[in-house]
């Protein structure tokens, strides 16, 4: 229970009223900060805040919509994403996030299409095999990858145009929001195997992302992905 020691709270004081003032915007800065801390820590206070927010939100109908000036959105985007001239190469991580948002359903459909039932929960075996169907991202490259934990290797079939003179496709392992880890360059065609370093093997589990970028020949010299994202997929246990 938080202590409320506020000036002017005669009549015994009632924290529901203090919270109402907070939602209205009448609290002084110290009280405002105290309530924001309390809201995060105390579910009763959080519930009271939500109660007042819902009740007072009925007044929102009083706000008349007014069309903002037409340049406003570009200014907002410039602040958030940088201006057009700096943006010729979109950050490939942005592409990955958009791909993740947009292709959840498409990926499930692709896996069902190749005979895997992704709706069945993965059996609780230790170290299952993982299959990843990497879908093209603004490209024509699809990659099917099977990870065999016993052998510690990734078997790949990459379908699509070759990377071209002076370029290579590079494969990356991405766990959650961590920095992508290079698994080396890969050719198009079937039957390519990538031996996975034993330090990386524990990272291979359902839900990780495998992605391919187009880099200079030999792969990115910096160890970090520089080129555009061309294919990506999420690993599913089978």
């Amino acid at each position, binding site marked *: 229970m938080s202590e409320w020691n506020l000036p*002017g709270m005669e*009549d015994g004081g009632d924290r529901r009223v203090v919270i*109402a003032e907070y939602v209205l915007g009448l609290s002084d800065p110290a009280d405002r900060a105290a309530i924001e801390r309390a809201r995060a820590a105390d579910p009763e206070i959080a519930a009271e805040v939500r109660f007042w927010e819902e009740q007072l*939100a009925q007044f929102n109908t009083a*706000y008349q*919509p*007014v069309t903002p*000036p037409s340049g406003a959105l570009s200014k907002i985007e410039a602040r958030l994403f940088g201006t057009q001239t700096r943006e010729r190469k979109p950050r490939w991580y942005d592409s990955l996030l958009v791909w993740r*948002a947009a292709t959840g359903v498409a990926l499930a459909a692709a896996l069902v299409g190749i005979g895997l039932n992704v709706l069945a929960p993965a059996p609780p075996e230790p170290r299952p095999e993982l299959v990843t169907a990497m879908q093209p991202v603004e490209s024509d490259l699809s990659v099917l990858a099977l990870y065999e934990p016993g052998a510690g290797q990734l078997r790949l079939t990459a379908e699509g145009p070759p990377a071209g003179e002076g370029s290579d496709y590079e494969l990356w392992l991405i766990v959650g929001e961590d920095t992508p880890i290079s698994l080396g360059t890969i050719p198009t065609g079937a039957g390519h195997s990538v031996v996975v370093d034993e330090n990386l093997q524990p990272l291979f589990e359902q839900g990780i992302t495998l992605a391919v970028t187009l880099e200079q020949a030999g792969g990115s010299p910096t160890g970090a992905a520089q080129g555009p994202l061309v294919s990506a997929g999420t690993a599913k246990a089978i």
Partner: protein
Amino acid sequence: MPYATRRPEVHLDENQIEVANLIGRTALADRSAFRDLYARTSAKLFGVALRILGDRGEAEDALQDIYVKIWQRAGQYRDDMGSPMTWLIAIARNHAIDIVRRRKPDTRDIDETHDIADPQMTPEQSALNASERARLNDCLDTLPDGRAEAVKSAYVEGYSYQELATRFAIPLNTVRTWLRRGLLQLRECLDT
């Protein structure tokens, strides 16, 4: 009396569902979803900023800050936080009030009368909110001495205690107690 379809409590307005989806995709850094969200909601949020700030140039600057906050906080929105529009308006309102509080006092003309009539609600909104609105309005009606109007204008206009004191001709050293008594009465009524 117009035909009113009684909707079950769990039905969600299609527009609200779409806005919630756009917020969810914005949380995943989906820029085209963010643009759609802006297209659907910016007129309302600009209206909020304009009402509270009273100055078009300031409201335009505030609108940018508001959408930057929306981009940054989109991942925090959850269904149990009320309707997505309520959440967005809260961001806009709180930001505009922060700006007003940082200004010199008494820079707003608080004697301006705004059009009190609310813009038309959609039939869905009317049906969904009817019993809630009735409860709030009934309770507000029980408050004496203009306190209901004070609660509403504190919310809608973002008035400070100083401004409420001037607007409702209450001495500054008693306006807090005056309003707090009204809020307590309102709260107890809403519980019944």
